[in-house]
């Protein structure tokens, strides 16, 4: 009986979503305040019913109701409660429900914090979000309901995919979806602006905190996913250019371009049409990711089980939402280039170059991801595109962006002072050179030197600008949130570059056979294999190895990698990681070899690998800090200072 309540709640949510979509849009068109006023209560009501539906599914997992087919497929009597909780979004149907719940969280937040928006604009934004919600609720109800029954109910469930039985899964998807879905808010702002004629650029200022907030969550989700696949899955690497990773990375690249383009449009009125287009693209790529992951059109290591009907539905929905919004864009986007003029050497130019590079990178990832499909279409055979393509092109496209990062804050809007930029280049270049020489003396290879150079260069730019503000701006106005966010995020890029390049250059990886008591030297560390014994968990038994790691004869870590066999018979490797600021030691158990306790082991020494995630965390923090800037919450641009004066006024703020 209770699971059916979940289904009914979803149907009621669908009806409210329809109301939230149709009536406010109609009201905004006909200038009817009563219709527009429906938006907020409808959004609140929809949230309540979606939350009920989600709670019902969670309850079914908690009470092990195996008569619900989705629970029977993804739970098991011996599954611990915390994984039963995260199993709610462990497969297609439930994760779709999570998608909808998070969309509703964003919508309700927007309904609550949009008091400063003109009523017509707020009604349109909520209406567009209602439309997106209708699409996903219909998708869930018609093709992917998690509440289908299985009668007679089986005595036990099939268990959650062991890959997903990990603390990482509890938070990775919600974070990622907060980002994906969050771009729907920027999208709704852009569509609302287009519907209203996009006559002024105030909408961009209102959209900026939401976009930065969503971008920060997406960053967090991607960082978590990278860390999870590295630390828990025994894959060892931190990025694989897998189609599903790419699906989250494309919106991130476009989102990065968008938060910068928004700054130009808000402060200088330029790039209007481009900002609108990027807002549409960012969310379109989120939808595209959903399509790629759930339709089975591409095969991937973590694609959901596919069903052709689902693919057709999402493709239709994608066609309506993206096709419709691009049509609105074609019809209503501002025809005249607006904004203040800018010189060739100006902050605008730098941001435009960065935007082009980021967009080109997203296009490059899209082409690489879809290439197997193109191969099919033109009978070129089944082909797939691997890391060599992505890696080399990505580095080429991002190198100019990294080069420009230190100059961005120093370049003034409109017209930059060339001599000031020369000074930055000289100082940052000198610091980078020193770093490079140091890396060379310490014996790094080309990539290690490059990583050190890039990190020093970006870091020097950040420090220089922070110092400039400290010396030149009046106390109390030195570091507005927007600028702190920018500096933190840019510093994050530097830290990420150091981590990514140094770990690629310096990692040592060995697959070895070790007898108990035998040692293997990896880098500066001796890994002593102490043997394997059996351990039991709630729903698995494991062969657990013990390795003692010594450095100059002193024990630095004792590691326990596992090879688990779950109750369903699936085998899962649990790598053991000894994490450190300067290096990670990493051990995965391979196969037993022979009868004398020897095992194949995979051993790694990974210097600086933490840095790349820490860099990601800094970028995330930058996004959150920026979205907290008080300036964004004002309704009227005229009431707020706008930067662009030639002097370094306190109001000049970050891009």
């Amino acid at each position, binding site marked *: 009986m209770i699971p059916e309540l979940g289904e009914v709640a979803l149907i009621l949510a669908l009806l409210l979503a329809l109301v939230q979509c149709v009536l406010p849009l109609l009201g905004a068109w006909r200038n009817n305040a009563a219709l527009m006023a429906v938006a907020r209560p409808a959004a609140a009501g929809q949230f309540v019913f979606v939350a009920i539906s989600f709670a019902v599914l969670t309850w079914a997992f908690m009470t092990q109701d195996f008569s619900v087919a989705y629970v029977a497929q993804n739970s098991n009597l011996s599954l611990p409660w915390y994984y039963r909780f995260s199993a709610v979004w462990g497969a297609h149907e439930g994760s779709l429900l999570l998608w909808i719940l998070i969309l509703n969280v964003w919508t309700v937040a927007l309904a609550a914090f949009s008091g400063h928006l003109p009523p017509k604009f707020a009604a349109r934004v909520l209406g567009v979000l209602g439309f997106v919600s209708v699409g996903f609720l219909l998708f869930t109800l018609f093709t992917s309901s998690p509440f289908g029954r299985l009668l007679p109910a089986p005595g036990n469930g099939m268990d959650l995919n062991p890959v997903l039985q990990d603390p990482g899964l509890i938070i990775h998807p919600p974070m990622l979806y907060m980002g994906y879905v969050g771009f729907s808010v920027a999208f709704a702002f852009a569509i609302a602006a287009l519907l209203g004629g996009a006559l002024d650029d105030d909408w961009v200022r209102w959209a900026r905190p939401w976009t930065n907030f969503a971008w920060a969550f997406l960053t967090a989700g991607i960082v978590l996913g990278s860390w999870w696949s590295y630390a828990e899955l025994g894959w060892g690497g931190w990025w694989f250019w897998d189609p599903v990773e790419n699906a989250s990375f494309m919106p991130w690249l476009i989102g990065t371009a968008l938060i910068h383009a928004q700054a130009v449009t808000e402060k200088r009125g330029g790039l209007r*049409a481009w900002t609108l287009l990027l807002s549409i693209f960012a969310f379109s790529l989120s939808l595209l990711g959903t*399509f790629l992951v759930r*339709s089975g059109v591409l095969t991937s290591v973590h694609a959901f089980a596919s069903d052709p009907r689902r693919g*057709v539905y999402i493709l239709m929905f994608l066609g309506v939402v993206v096709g419709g919004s691009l049509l609105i*864009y074609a019809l209503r986007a501002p025809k005249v280039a607006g904004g203040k003029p800018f010189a060739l050497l100006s902050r605008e130019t730098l941001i435009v170059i960065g935007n082009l590079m980021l967009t080109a990178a997203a296009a490059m990832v899209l082409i690489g991801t879809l290439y197997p*499909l193109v191969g*099919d279409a033109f009978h070129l055979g089944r082909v797939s595109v691997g890391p060599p393509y992505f890696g080399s092109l990505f580095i080429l496209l991002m190198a100019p962006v990294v080069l420009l990062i230190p100059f961005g804050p120093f370049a003034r809007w409109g017209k930059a002072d060339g001599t000031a930029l020369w000074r930055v280049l000289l100082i940052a270049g000198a610091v980078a050179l020193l770093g490079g020489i140091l890396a060379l003396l310490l014996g790094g290879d080309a990539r290690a030197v490059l990583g050190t150079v890039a990190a020093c260069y970006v870091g020097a730019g950040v420090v220089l600008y922070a110092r400039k503000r400290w010396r030149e701006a009046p106390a109390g106005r030195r570091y507005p949130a927007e600028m702190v966010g920018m500096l933190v995020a840019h510093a994050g890029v530097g830290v990420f570059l150091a981590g990514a390049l140094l770990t690629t250059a310096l990692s040592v990886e060995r697959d070895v056979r070790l007898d108990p008591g035998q040692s293997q030297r990896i880098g500066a560390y001796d890994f002593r294999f102490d043997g394997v014994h059996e351990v039991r968990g709630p729903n698995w038994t494991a062969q657990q190895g013990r390795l003692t790691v010594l450095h100059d004869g002193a024990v630095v870590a004792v590691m326990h990698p596992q090879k688990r066999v779950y109750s369903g018979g699936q085998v899962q490797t649990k790598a053991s990681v000894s994490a450190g600021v300067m290096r990670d030691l990493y051990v995965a158990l391979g196969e037993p070899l022979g009868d004398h306790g020897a095992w*194949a082991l995979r051993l790694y020494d990974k210097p600086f690998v933490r840095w790349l995630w820490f860099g990601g965390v800094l970028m995330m923090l930058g996004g959150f800090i920026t979205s907290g800037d008080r300036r964004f919450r004002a309704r009227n641009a005229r009431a707020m200072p706008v930067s662009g004066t030639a002097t370094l006024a306190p109001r000049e703020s970050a891009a």
Partner: protein
Amino acid sequence: MNRLLPLAGFLLLVTLFGYGLWWNAHHDVTAVPSPLIGKPAPAFDLPRLHHPALRVTKADLLGKPYLLNVFASWCFACGDEHPVLMAEVHELGLPLIGYDYKDKPADARAWLTARGDPYTLVVTDQSGDTAINFGVYGAPETFLIDADGIIRYKHIGPLTPGVIRDQLAPQLRKLGVQPAPGI
């Protein structure tokens, strides 16, 4: 016109996706067809793993069917496949040629010494150049090559008892090889 370009690009994408969905609905998604099936195996001339002074060419192996198993000591999936090969090699009824792919010969010899050597003989392709002609893009992969040197069947990924029973054994029977009744 300019403003219609994004829409036009998107419609192209949708067409491609529609085609992709249609294609998937009408084809076996997991099968990666090898353009080499039914074609002569590429010529090769490679040193033997255990006797590097001796070389093996395609011509040396003509005359009766054989299996060519691409493996490497660095390949974890090959470790999964290895016990299957050890258990089934004598049941198959034809020679199993090991093809050590992009591997250090010393590592490969240690790997086979530790785990047992199921192969009739092993050739090494340290550079991986010849493997390109075979269309190898990972290890393990297994080719069935007939007496005339024609590739009859290819399997990508580890051979499992199920794959051997359901896919490989019928191909073997077509070539007149009689695998043991258990297979």
